[in-house]
């Protein structure tokens, strides 16, 4: 039994007092490979942001026992025309360990080349990042994630804009991370991919709908409950009773 490593206690996250994640309870055990699924506006990205510490909670708490995390947001604020090469961008994945002055060793460089190769970008190392397509850039960000070498990895729709062949490659990388004992939370829309590759799922539509083994979560009943969520915030919403 692994120790619980990421615990949500009555967690509510949102914007302008409107909840996007409402009263979530539960723990993600170390080594889990968890898919986060649900409709648009259901709070999936918000949950990852909350875990990454980029959004103050409206109530409850996240207890994160991991020493470090790597987070790939859905819409990052990478400046795409910044004059750096593919290799240098991948190298930034090492910055939490090498810091401001740490030397980039021979083996660091080798690992960087290897990561770039693993996402299928060999031969692109010296290209400027502005020459990459959207999907290629996404793959490069995956390479950076590999170099970050974090025990907890948060992926927000990592396969958007990525071709079928590369999705297969990236899923292999994710499964490798899983085998290495890393904890992974991944927001996804493709339920087939979730059923085939993710042992656990969290279905969330503002309210948590179901959480557990994927087969028990992605049932027709649960999915139709998730679909019935009203996406718009109710402007006239009353104060939440449960918050008291």
């Amino acid at each position: 039994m692994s120790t619980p490593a990421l615990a949500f206690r009555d967690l509510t996250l949102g914007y302008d007092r409107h909840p996007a994640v409402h009263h979530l309870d539960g723990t993600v055990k170390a080594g889990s490979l968890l898919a986060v699924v649900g409709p648009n506006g259901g709070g999936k990205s918000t949950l990852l942001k909350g875990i990454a510490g980029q959004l103050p909670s409206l109530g409850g708490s996240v207890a994160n026992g991991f020493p470090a995390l790597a987070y790939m947001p859905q819409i990052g604020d990478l400046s795409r025309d910044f004059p750096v090469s593919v290799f240098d961008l991948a190298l930034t994945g090492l910055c939490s360990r090498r810091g401001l002055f740490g030397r980039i060793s021979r083996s660091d460089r080798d690992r960087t080349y290897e990561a770039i190769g693993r996402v299928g970008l060999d031969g692109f190392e010296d290209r400027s990042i502005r020459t990459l397509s959207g999907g290629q850039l996404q793959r490069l960000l995956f390479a950076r994630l590999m170099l970050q070498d974090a025990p907890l990895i948060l992926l927000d729709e990592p396969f958007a804009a990525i071709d079928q062949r590369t999705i297969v490659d990236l899923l292999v990388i994710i499964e490798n991370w899983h085998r290495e004992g890393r904890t992974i939370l991944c927001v996804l829309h493709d339920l087939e991919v979730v059923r085939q590759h993710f042992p656990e799922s969290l279905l969330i539509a503002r309210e948590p709908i179901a959480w557990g083994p994927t087969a028990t979560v992605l049932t027709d009943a649960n999915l139709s409950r998730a679909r019935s969520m009203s996406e718009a915030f109710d402007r006239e919403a009353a104060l939440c009773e449960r918050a008291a």
Partner: protein
Amino acid sequence: MLLYDLLIGPFIEFPFMRRALAGGLAVSLGAAPIGLFLMLRRMSLIGDAMAHAILPGAALGFLIGGLSLGAMTLGGLVAGFSVALLAGAISRATLVKEDMALAAFYLLSLATGVLILSGAKANVDVLSLLFGSILALDDSTLLLIVSISSLTMVALALGYRGLVLECLDPGFAAGVSRHGALFHLGFLALVVLNLVAGFHALGTLLVVGIMMLPAGTARLWSDDITAMLGIAVLAAMFANLVGLLVSYHLGLASGPAIILVAGLTYIASLIAAPLGLLRRWLPRRHLEA
């Protein structure tokens, strides 16, 4: 020796030309890299806004302390730091974008400055504040300029990775380090310092030219930030040298001459550099793959 008279003679003959060159080269070393980072942060016009924020401080310093280096520098620094740091902090803490925050605070600074000056009815030599006096740099001013440019280079060398990361991908930088704000605000402080150093030589308005024009030039010649830093510094130094010589031989005002050389270099690069227009106008045949 025609070439000697043209290029070297003026500096050998006249100490004020040597001082101007030394000051100009020192300003180039600090300001050009700062301009490059401003450009990469899409803040190319921020230098101009910040210069407007510094102007009232410097004028106020002049009003209180007269034509004293210390008073004008201190006034400029106080006004510049307040505006830059307030704007930076507010853009980090709220939805307000940095350019709007800067616009708000520099306008406040400018209006306050103008109000105080017009009330004082003193005769501030606004023209020298605006356009500088590179041909009249005294020892202490030169020392100030050289110190600030040295400080800038040391700070850039120490903070290089953090600053690049903060410009390249601020979200990622925030994820791996809690010191993003330090790099951001430290950088803004460097912008102010270099504007203050430069305004003694080129004036509060023209100093922006030696900051931004070489950066724009560098962007057209390279796709690599390290190379761009070198190109920007060289372009700024070239503008200082050639601008001084042109102003000497043709009897023109030095500050504007320097900035014009920097501007013409930019325009030439815009046309002829590898990433410039000529490449677009003369498309070559496309490749197989």
